[in-house]
């Protein structure tokens, strides 16, 4: 193995660029973390860039003590977990019959057309709003889950994945008297962990970060999910300072509190991210091969 000098230059050039790109990706977050851990006066004097100055946990103490934030947090956590589980079930139940060949399930083709139309013709927002309200989801916390439990794109990804299962195995199971339901739940799904994890990631991120639907459909502050709550904290001084007694001798201000709130909302994602990261690559691979 011989490496020429230009080869070495090339490789180190790539490393430099990638490190730069990584830095661009994380530096905004680092600066927010630093702000959340700094004192009010350090932040006011604009001393904080990437490292905390006059280190203090006061902003965090205040944020952690806000019951409304925790309420929004657990509401969002619950709707994300339940919504993701429900979404996987709904998607699998529809994707499995549609993955059958024409000879096995002749009506699959027609239904698939209906699914594709649902995917490409996006209903306009105003009629969509009126329909969801008509169904009774207006100001109803279920609106945090229901609109997100079946996504036609994800359906197609799962269908493509199911299609590659060996037909012989399923036929043998059928002849043994194994029904389609048992086949799906005991044979197909246990072998589909990769696609299930990928779609769980897609649905989960969507549910955790959802903002537009609750903004449209929820009026009651009790049911505000985390992102709406954070938005209030960021844009409204009176909401974020609501729990503090006097402003005189505090060691935090709206800026440090906002920084802490934002990190509060990112932490759960950072915690699960390392376990899910590889499914991003898998998802990109499955998603780029259309059936």
């Amino acid at each position, binding site marked *: 193995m011989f490496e020429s000098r230009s*080869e070495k230059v*090339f490789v180190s050039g790539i490393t430099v660029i*990638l490190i730069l*790109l990584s830095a661009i*990706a994380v530096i905004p*977050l680092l*600066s*927010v973390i630093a702000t959340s851990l700094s004192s009010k006066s350090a932040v006011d004097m*604009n001393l904080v*860039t990437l490292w905390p100055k006059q280190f203090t946990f006061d902003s965090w103490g205040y944020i952690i003590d806000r019951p409304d934030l925790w309420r929004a947090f657990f509401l969002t956590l619950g709707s994300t977990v339940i919504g993701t589980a429900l979404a996987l079930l709904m*998607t699998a*139940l*529809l994707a*499995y*019959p549609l993955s*059958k*060949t*024409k*000879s*096995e399930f002749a009506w699959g083709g027609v*239904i698939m057309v*209906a699914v*594709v139309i*649902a995917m*490409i*013709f*996006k*209903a*306009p927002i*105003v*009629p969509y*709003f*009126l*329909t969801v309200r008509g*169904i009774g989801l207006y100001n109803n916390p279920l609106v945090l889950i229901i609109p997100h*439990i*079946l996504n036609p794109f994800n359906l197609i990804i799962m269908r493509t994945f199911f299609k590659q299962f060996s037909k012989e195995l399923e036929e043998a199971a059928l*002849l043994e008297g194994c029904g*389609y339901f048992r086949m799906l739940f005991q044979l197909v799904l246990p072998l589909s962990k990769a696609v299930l994890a990928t779609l769980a990631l897609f649905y989960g*991120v969507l549910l*955790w*970060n959802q*903002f*537009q639907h609750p903004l*449209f459909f929820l009026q009651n502050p009790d049911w505000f999910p985390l*992102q709406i709550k*954070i*938005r209030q904290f*960021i844009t409204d001084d009176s909401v974020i300072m609501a729990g503090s007694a006097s402003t005189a001798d505090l060691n935090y201000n709206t800026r440090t509190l*906002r920084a802490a709130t934002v990190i509060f*909302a*990112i932490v759960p*994602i950072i915690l699960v*991210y390392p376990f899910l*990261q590889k499914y*991003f690559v898998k998802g*990109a*691979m499955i998603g*780029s091969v*259309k059936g």
Partner: protein
Amino acid sequence: MDTALVPQAGIPHKKKKNKYRKYAPLLIMMVPGLLYLLFNNYLPMLGIAIAFKKINFAKGLLESDWVAFENFKYLFKTSDAFIITRNTILYNLLFIVVGTFLSFACAILLNEIKNKAVLKFYQSIITLPHLISMVIVSYLVYALLSADTGFMNHTVLPWFGMKDGISWYTEEKYWPWILTLVHFWKSVGYSSIVFFAALLGIDEEYYEAARLDGASRLQQIRHITLPILTPVIIMLTLLSIGRIFYSDFGLFYQVPMNSGALFNTTATIDTYVFKGLMGSGDIGMSAAAGVYQSIVGFLLVMLANYIVRLYSKDSALF
């Protein structure tokens, strides 16, 4: 074909009955999903009718008077229709052209990293912004640009001798740049993974043969990687052109902090429709704008898909 039917071929008179018995569990399985699509995706399509009515909440929507194309006429008479269409299309074009280039370049860089652990590290870091919600992104931008406390005004601009600072949230001329940079910050890492996944599929033998012939790394990229990936790039581009009438609501609504002064350069069809719905605009016009978006968007997806099919049937969406 029809291999699945072979076991039943011996008893033809029972075939039809068997077919229904056989389909029943599959049909039952699909009931929840199909009902869901009916309510969530098909029922709202009927509501398109309201764009042709003079919406009167006192009378109720069904009883509101029909006005044919009045709403559309008003919409296209204002300069709004032009501005939101222009913004939506231009931003999308910019995102597609520059975004494809950046993601592809980034994928090629990743592909040159042969150490698995190092590769995983870079991948994790650059896809991280994709997971961060727009609410939080809008805060990150605000921390950078806020007039009195923003990092740009109190630190960066003074380096260049600009003591006064810039009032970012009222100066519309900067926003095409800001929104584009924010979009790329959030999306390039993730979309480069899509290209990277395609790169992984290239047979290593091509590169070995090229190396034996003395090709440099750049020559290998130019003569092997690029030609093989061209179809993928074309396909992804065409598909995103099909979505050119839609914009990322979060990006255009939240990052400019809903500042009215920025309408000319930050309003898109989606934010316009939303403001109409929330009462800060004309609901009739916004309903019309929504229908206009759905129909043109639908035609564009069909067209893009048709072109993809001409090029390669397997890559088409349907």
